[in-house]
């Protein structure tokens, strides 16, 4: 018996990273801006996305969404009311979306071929831990946080907030009754991800949504 040390230096999520790189190339070639929306369950990703899809569509943009949940197609049905093509991904117990699931659900999607889209939104499974490790090839990762969750959420989940490209605070319409400390929340997001763009929004009243749409349009103009 001989004991030997074999150097491997191999990324554990290499397979996902490679698939994600392939998706990123496809998105770029098709000229579609892809965003990955991450948050805890109940932050209001679906309401926020529903609003975003409807407004972008009204502005003449071609949009589509993939939505991840463990079970049910409730969210897909809600989002489809915007008139945009929507596909539900059921992970059946898996706590995150991965690049393989995205690739599979992009296949044979009539009316939502990548080349026929301006924006593709991916609503991840509600979870602030695991989705941070799985690249979906997105250009922009958006971390959402609602006023009911507590201002210290970014401090509790630095892995996610630090990996985000933009942050969205949702449900601003109920900030006052919730005793939401806006200054502290903004400061905490900035401690974890200095300089990140933060949008304070309400899908109910539409507050802050124009700024968000302008950001999307700017980012799309930059793509490539």
């Amino acid at each position, binding site marked *: 018996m001989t004991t030997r040390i074999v150097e491997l230096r191999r990324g554990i999520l290499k397979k996902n990273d490679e698939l994600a790189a392939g998706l990123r190339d496809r998105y770029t070639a098709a000229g579609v801006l892809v965003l990955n929306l991450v948050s805890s369950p109940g932050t209001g990703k679906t309401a926020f996305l529903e609003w975003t899809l409807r407004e972008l569509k009204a502005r003449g943009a071609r949009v589509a969404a993939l939505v991840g949940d463990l079970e049910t197609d409730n969210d897909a049905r809600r989002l489809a009311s915007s008139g945009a093509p929507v596909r539900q991904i059921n992970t059946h117990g898996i706590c995150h979306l991965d690049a393989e699931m995205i690739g599979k659900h992009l296949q044979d999607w009539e009316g939502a071929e990548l080349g026929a889209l301006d924006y593709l939104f991916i609503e991840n499974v509600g979870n602030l831990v695991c989705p941070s*490790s799985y690249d979906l090839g997105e250009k922009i990762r958006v971390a959402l946080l609602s006023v009911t969750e507590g201002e210290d959420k970014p401090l509790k989940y630095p892995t996610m907030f630090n990996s985000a490209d933009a942050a969205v605070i949702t449900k601003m319409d109920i900030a006052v009754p919730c005793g939401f400390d806006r200054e502290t929340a903004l400061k905490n997001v900035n401690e974890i991800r200095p*300089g990140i763009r933060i949008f304070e929004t309400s899908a109910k009243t539409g507050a802050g949504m124009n700024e968000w749409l302008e950001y999307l349009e700017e980012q799309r103009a930059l793509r490539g």
Partner: protein
Amino acid sequence: MHELSIVSSIVESVTESLEAYPGARVKEVRLRVGALAAVVRESLDFCYGIATEGTPLEGSILVVNVLPVVMHCEPCGQDVELDSLQSFRCPRCGEPCYDMRQGRELEIEAIEIDEIDAVEEKK
């Protein structure tokens, strides 16, 4: 809780690399895990026992080398190690840091294996 998928990837990856060493048993698997890799040590160990059962990795030890977050501080002109994950500011000058140099690693560094010697194999 995606530690089970991580551990399954480790088993797959290590088993693949064992093809060059037929009959070898794994004694130790060494990982490099960044402090921001979103991996919980306890869950990793728990899942490791389950996922390695009946594989050449069964009974092996998982060694996790945790790497601190290293950011590049522009004003200081050097790489600095963060003391905590509660603030992405330079511990020297207090300015915010934007450029991460280490902290998201999630990789298998090396494995320690027991190889069956040619002579032994003939017995």
